[in-house]
């Protein structure tokens, strides 16, 4: 397989960029596309989603017709899903979680399209998504709690009343220690918050990567058998249902756990899942 050598011996189904790269390695545009391969494939999915939204969802009518029916079913299903996790206030987060789900789902499924590559099989894509989730969650928390309460919470909710009971000469020392611990806790908490979506991104990337490799191996096996039999055998079709299921499940898991992170960030009683996790 042509792409195999370029990726350290790991089989990969050739996509249109690898084909172009093998054909015109020296061309700057091809080199650029090859360098930003995952970003390009993610952008293709994003543009397709944006076009569908622009074409069919921009001006919905009260009595739906055609594609609007399908989009409404999808949107309502995602909205119910998000609100079942976050609670009644989850509507505000439906666009973020819904876009996340659709984006990941379509990127995962793009592995079934000839010439395409699932951008989610790269850690760069999934960590980028994790970064977006982290930023969104922290932004939601700051907007809900206020910046002071946000920092106070991340710094371990410290109290300074116990300093009054200490001898006067010890108070500055204790204060410095306390501030140091607060800063340490703040950094640790922040890293902990970031690690949550990062763990999701690792799971997603490795699952999709494994799917991609499996498809490539079976495709290669079919082609090898075809060389012997003078007729290619489509072994990869046997795993297509599995790819469909895993792609959906992975997108769902990422969206579900992101919703749970958002619910955990909301003040007590606002998120449905909040109480269960504290």
């Amino acid at each position, binding site marked *: 397989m042509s792409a195999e050598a370029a990726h350290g011996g790991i089989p990969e189904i050739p996509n249109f960029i690898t084909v172009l790269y093998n054909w015109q390695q020296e061309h700057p545009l091809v080199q650029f596309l090859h360098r930003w391969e995952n*970003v390009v494939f993610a952008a293709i999915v994003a543009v397709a989603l944006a076009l569908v939204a622009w074409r069919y969802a921009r001006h919905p009518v*009260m009595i*739906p017709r055609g594609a609007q029916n399908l989009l409404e079913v999808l*949107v309502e299903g995602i909205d119910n899903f998000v609100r079942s996790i976050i609670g009644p206030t989850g509507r505000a987060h439906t666009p973020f979680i819904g876009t996340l789900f659709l*984006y990941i789902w379509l990127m995962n499924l793009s592995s079934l399209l000839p010439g395409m590559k699932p951008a989610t099989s790269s850690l*760069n894509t999934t960590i*980028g998504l994790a970064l*977006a989730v982290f930023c969104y969650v922290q932004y939601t928390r700051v907007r809900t709690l206020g910046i002071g309460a946000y920092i106070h919470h991340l710094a371990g909710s410290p109290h300074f009343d116990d300093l009054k009971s200490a001898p006067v000469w010890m108070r500055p020392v204790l204060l410095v220690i306390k501030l140091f611990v607060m800063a340490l806790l703040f950094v640790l908490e922040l890293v902990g918050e970031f690690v949550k979506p990062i763990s999701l991104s690792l799971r997603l990337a490795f699952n999709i990567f494994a799917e991609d490799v499996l498809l490539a191996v079976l495709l290669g096996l079919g082609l090898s058998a075809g060389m012997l039999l003078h007729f290619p055998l489509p072994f990869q079709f046997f795993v297509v249902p599995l790819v469909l299921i895993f792609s959906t499940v992975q997108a769902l898991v990422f969206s579900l756990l992101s919703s749970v992170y958002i619910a955990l960030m909301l003040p007590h009683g606002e998120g449905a899942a909040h109480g269960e996790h504290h």
Partner: protein
Amino acid sequence: MPPILQLDLQQILSQAISFALLVVVLRKFAWGPLLGILDQRRARIEADLRQAAESKEALGRLQHELSTRLAKIDEETRNKIQQALLEAKRVSLEMQEQARVQARAILAKSQETVEQELAQAKAMLRDQIAEMTVQAVERVLQQKLDQPSDDKLISGILDELERQAPRQAG
């Protein structure tokens, strides 16, 4: 190193930014309008259902009111018929009584008239008898009569009297 482990900060940031842009675009062109229309439709359906329930309730109230009013009208009609029957009976009795009084008056008057006419007829008869008696006496006196002729004459007079009496009475 396998490609999956080759991290690139620029790519990571690009992916995060492109996703953020996609969220903004979809929020504006898909989520906003579609969630809005779903909410509008839900609100309209709820309003329609509420209105239907209110209409049903109003209809029930109207039906109840109508049946109450019909029952009241029935009762009033029955009372009026009853009153009319009583009035009719009273009027009928009055008319009967009046007719009876009038009949009695007519009867009395008729009897009085009959008695007057009878008295007149008797008086007329007496006058005629007297006149005929006078004529008969005159005839007897003018003719020389024997006993059989007298009897014949008297019986003839009496027959004539008998013939004339019913005519006078009629």
